[in-house]
């Protein structure tokens, strides 16, 4: 029987430590892991809990991230509560198995400290790995700070394991910016946290010998489409379960989360849409600008997948809103940023149809400052005053060298 961990009402934890404490409190049956910077301390911490008697489950050290996620798939199919952690190149190596996990409807929890993808090799935080997972069929929750990394990890088990969902869940936090920055975190006591998540309820588990099942069947053109359609429906409908789990966490902690977070949007004229730790930077910038008389607001999808199309549309359906900048912290590889594309699609079905621009920023851990966020807000204000987009639609923010941008508004 696992020992109880003594916790203060307020702890000083970084995002990694917060995530590993949440994994411990979930009493995971199997953690199969291959540690990688910057998420290493999640597994390292969990291993220490195991060694010191705070965990009853197994910790399996494997030979690669592909093997780590494969081990998770096997343990989850066997019927256990399963989790692991990764970043960047490790995430990339896991990708094949991520699709297996979601297609097999196995509610694995993957904690990700977001990091850039090579080449060039880089250990710092950007959203390349998070974006790499966006078509993998997982629920993707985004934590903007250490407290949220803790809260979202607890929620991830409860969401993914819900019998109406039964899908794997990723919890993202920004590498280093969040994963290594110590902040005040208000944890739940062990029993309270465990009771919030609840006992694991196995479904189609292979260790139930009274009902032998085949996992991982092959389907060709006559069956594949129906299975993927059913899987997509489950992911889309997880939205109501996510809302319900967030509501239950609020009852327990007073901390309120929404699938789309909005800040000062009620009367906003200009807005930034962003993910991760940059959200807090943008909020600071908006607050300062409001003192200068510019009505700035921020929209932040907490739930990256399933993409909250309806809630993003609602957030942008503000009569005063004129111009919106979507910030993508991932090299878009020959396209507009993914967040820009998805948010623009949602904005297109609003009445106000604000002007939409895209910024590629922060790649490889390049700092994103309050000053830069203010500059971007002011540029949106210039669009609003001119009545058209006065810059390139896609620009690079914070890169050295001549101004880099693509595409202009076609004006009659």
């Amino acid at each position, binding site marked *: 029987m696992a020992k109880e961990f003594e916790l203060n009402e307020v702890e000083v934890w970084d995002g990694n430590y917060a995530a590993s404490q949440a994994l411990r409190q979930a009493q995971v049956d199997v953690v199969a892991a291959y540690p990688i910077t910057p998420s290493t301390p999640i597994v390292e911490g969990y291993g220490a809990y195991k060694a010191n008697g705070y965990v009853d489950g197994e910790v399996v050290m494997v030979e690669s991230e592909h093997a780590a996620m494969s081990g998770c798939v096997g343990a989850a199919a066997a019927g256990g509560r399963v989790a692991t952690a990764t970043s960047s190149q490790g995430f990339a190596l896991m990708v094949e198995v991520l699709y297996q996990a979601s*297609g*097999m*409807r*196995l509610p694995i929890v993957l904690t990700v400290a977001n990091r850039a993808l090579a080449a060039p090799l880089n250990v710092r935080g950007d959203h390349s790995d998070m974006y790499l997972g966006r078509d993998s069929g997982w629920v993707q929750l985004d934590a903007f700070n250490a407290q949220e990394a803790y809260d979202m990890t607890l929620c991830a088990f409860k969401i993914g394991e819900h019998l109406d969902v*039964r899908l794997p869940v990723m919890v993202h936090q920004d590498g280093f910016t969040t994963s290594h920055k110590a902040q005040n975190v208000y944890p739940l006591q062990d029993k309270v946290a465990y009771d919030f998540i609840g006992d694991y309820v196995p*479904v*189609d588990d292979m260790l139930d*010998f*009274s*009902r*032998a*099942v*085949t*996992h*991982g*069947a092959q*389907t*060709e053109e*006559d*069956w594949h*489409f*129906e*299975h993927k*359609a*059913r899987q997509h*429906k*489950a992911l889309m409908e997880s939205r109501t379960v996510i809302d319900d789990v967030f509501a239950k966490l609020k009852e327990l902690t007073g901390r309120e989360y929404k699938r789309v977070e909005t800040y000062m949007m009620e009367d906003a004229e200009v807005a930034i849409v962003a993910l991760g730790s940059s959200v807090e930077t943008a909020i600071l910038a908006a607050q300062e600008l409001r003192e200068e008389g510019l009505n700035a607001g921020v929209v932040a999808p907490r739930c990256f997948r399933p993409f909250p199309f309806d809630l993003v549309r609602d957030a942008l359906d503000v009569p005063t809103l004129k111009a919106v900048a979507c910030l993508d912290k991932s090299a878009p590889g020959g396209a507009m940023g993914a967040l820009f594309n998805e948010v623009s699609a949602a904005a297109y079905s609003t009445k106000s149809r604000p002007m939409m621009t895209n910024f590629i920023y922060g790649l490889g851990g390049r700092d994103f400052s309050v000053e830069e966020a203010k500059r971007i807000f002011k540029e949106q204000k210039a669009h609003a005053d001119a009545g058209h987009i006065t810059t390139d639609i896609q620009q690079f923010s914070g890169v050295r060298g001549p101004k880099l941008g693509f595409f202009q508004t076609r004006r009659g």
Partner: protein
Amino acid sequence: MSTGVLGENKRGLRELGAEDKLGWDEVTQGVVLTSFEGDSSNIAHTVVEDREYSDFNTYTATVASWRVLKPVYNRDICIDCQNCWVWCPDTSIISRDKQMLGIDYDHCKGCGVCVEVCPTNPKSLLMFGESKEIDEALSEWPEKKKKEK
């Protein structure tokens, strides 16, 4: 309903892929397929002909049409060494109490591994064209080869 280990039972009832096509709202969650009807707790100790295979089980489907050559088995020469049973990649050698009984032609794909591993002289298993009658094949069986000196 059992007709013995060599009988039809539910083996090879249908062509693989000939199931009723279900809509997305009817397929199983996560493509999980049940292998047997009812309680399978004791399945490892239940002989094949007494198992209640489910319609999802490949045992109830046949892949005989994939085959071009088929192995033919000659009881008169076989020494029941079980080599073919061990090596067959499709569990298509039917053996009971260490006695070779025949070939499961519903699941054999004609790979020829059983012939390759057969140690007798002449071999107790040989490949023939799919359309060759068994009696005709047996009548063409080669004589024992003499050792080369």
